[in-house]
């Protein structure tokens, strides 16, 4: 008779405690330990982000409200910098130019990169694909600035391209200090990265989907548009986003290949800081750029994952 009441009191006692108390005593500790373990490795990144991204950003916001008197900055809370910059046509022109150039670079890079990424993903043998990926990484070995300077050797009026064209009696065609040159610079910056990003999204496409499309009378070219691109959409959009971000903030190509005309926001920032120590106004431009990139990135990511349950 003795074990019976004991057996009865146990569940009753358990019920008076918080539900699942015995197991709850073990699991959260373990979960806490796991999250602590993960945190230890994530912490340096967090500290880095707080120190070198969040604090400077806060400082930049504060700076945009400072004033400049006699070429010296003074802490202040004045909206005059915002009003001045947003009231200038030159600012909005530069904004429009930069947006248009970055959008064009993003589309152009994506279009030029796609056939390359497609060929590497679907047409090459495994070993050739490894070589192609390796070759795509090589451009990152050299500074972007050096690569842009070497384009000058090709594009200038007495550069390699015009000399060769001269042999067949053509040209010289002015290419340096044009939008075309700026665009070539943007391509130099983002093309290898876009190819790699596209390639990895194409490589993960389920090949049976392509076979299934062929089997349902979808020809080769049509399958690219009906199946390959929709399947790889997330990666393709993210790749285009990277091209946009890189081009939007780039200073090197528009100044050294485009000759500073038309003026982009990055050029406007340097001009503003040089003329009369107007760092607060430059902060307004920088913050506008950051805001624009955030909106574009958010919209792009939303579009990239549209219709996906996760």
């Amino acid at each position, binding site marked *: 008779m003795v074990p019976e009441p004991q057996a009865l009191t146990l569940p009753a006692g358990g019920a008076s405690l918080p539900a699942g108390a015995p197991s709850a005593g073990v699991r959260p500790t373990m979960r806490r330990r796991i999250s602590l373990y993960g945190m230890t490795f994530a912490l340096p990144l967090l500290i880095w982000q707080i120190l070198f991204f969040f604090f400077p950003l806060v400082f930049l916001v504060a700076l945009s409200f400072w004033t400049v008197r006699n070429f010296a900055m003074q802490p202040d809370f004045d909206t005059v910098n915002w009003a001045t910059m947003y009231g200038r046509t030159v600012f909005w022109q530069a904004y429009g130019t930069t947006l248009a150039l970055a959008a064009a670079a993003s589309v152009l890079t994506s279009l030029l990169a796609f056939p390359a990424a497609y060929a590497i993903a679907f047409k090459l043998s495994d070993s050739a694909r490894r070589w192609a990926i390796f070759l795509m990484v090589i451009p990152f070995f050299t500074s972007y600035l050096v690569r842009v300077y070497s384009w000058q050797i090709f594009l200038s009026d007495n550069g390699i391209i015009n000399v060769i064209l001269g042999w067949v009696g053509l040209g010289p065609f002015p290419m340096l200090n044009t939008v075309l040159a700026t665009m070539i610079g943007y391509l130099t910056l983002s093309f290898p990265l876009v190819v790699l990003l596209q390639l990895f999204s194409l490589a993960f496409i*389920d090949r*049976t*989907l392509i*076979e*299934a*499309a*062929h*089997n*349902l*009378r*979808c*020809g*080769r070219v*049509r399958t690219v548009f*009906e*199946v390959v691109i*929709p*399947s790889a*959409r997330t990666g393709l959009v993210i790749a285009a986003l990277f091209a946009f971000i890189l081009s939007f903030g780039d200073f090197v190509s528009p100044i050294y290949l485009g000759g500073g005309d038309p003026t982009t926001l990055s050029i406007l920032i340097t001009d503003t800081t040089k003329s009369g120590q107007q760092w607060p106004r430059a902060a307004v431009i920088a913050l506008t750029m950051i805001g624009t990139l955030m909106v574009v990135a958010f919209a792009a990511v939303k579009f990239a994952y549209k*219709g996906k*349950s996760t």
Partner: protein
Amino acid sequence: MTRDTLVSFEGVVKRFGAFVAVQKLDFEIKKGEFLAIMGSSGCGKTTTLRMLAGLEAPTEGVIRLAGKPINDLPTWCRDTPMVWQSLALFPFLNVRENVEFALKMRGVGKAERRRRAEHWLERMQIAEFAERNISQLSGGQRQRVALARSLVVEPEILLLDEPLSALDAALKVRMQSVLKNLQRETGITFVYVTHSQSEAFSMADRVVIMSRGKIEQIGTPQEIYRTPRTRFVADFLGSSNLFTGTVRKAGAGLELDSPVGRLRLAGGAEAGTSATITVLDTKTHLSVAPPAGNVNAVPVRVIGEEFVGATATVYLETAQGQEIRVQKGHDELADLPLGIGQPLFAWWMPEDAHLVAEG
């Protein structure tokens, strides 16, 4: 080739480098039949199906569809829709768009496309999920979408590559009857690749059994079950007892000297040659006393027993160590002592034994 032949394989060989996936296939698929191609993995059954679909090109030989050679016809120019093992549904399209896909590729107009897709969505009982994403469907519902997507063009032939292997047992049985009814009602020729004997035998009109890139036997499920033609088939089906020996007396009333004794059967073979006979486990009987009359009897001991539903399988061993299985209803075994080690006689009628080819 007869008039009711839809597909014929003529000396078809497929090699991947040095590996021979399929060697010398010669068989025909009749119009409107449900043909199952069965074998263990790597036997070449999927390669055979993929050649028919145009996803692989034969290395040698000719495949004809409705009399015309189709070797060089790419898959998008054939009407040989296939249902994949993974189903290969398009995750970026909803159910309706998946079903409409093949019609869209043929340039069928929007209204007509919708009407025809609707018909198949209803027929496959998935109309209520038409606007859903594929990821929101259960395994069985996905199966139905895959079938609707392939059948919407009302093809002459449908290829299925182990489509039920991912489903649980109960759903598998339900989908089998869905498939069989669908095939009977539409009259579309089904070519069904599987490694499952129960799937092949319960649905197919004819079964092709393949091993190592070759056809071992083609026939109705009954023919194959009752008279397996080769040792491989008998082993693969696993429902027969096999005895190997030397033929002693040829012609009618053939005798075989095997390790378990002298066995008689009704077939014919040349004297002096080695031969194997098979006896179905359901045609093998048990008795305590040596059976009288013109039967083959082997003394055995009971080594185990297994119950599945209404039938029991008794495992026995001969003095030479060969295992023999006997399958019976419970009541047929009621009067027998079946304790482990119990000596019994396993016996069968000579006409229930069949000679099989070695291999």
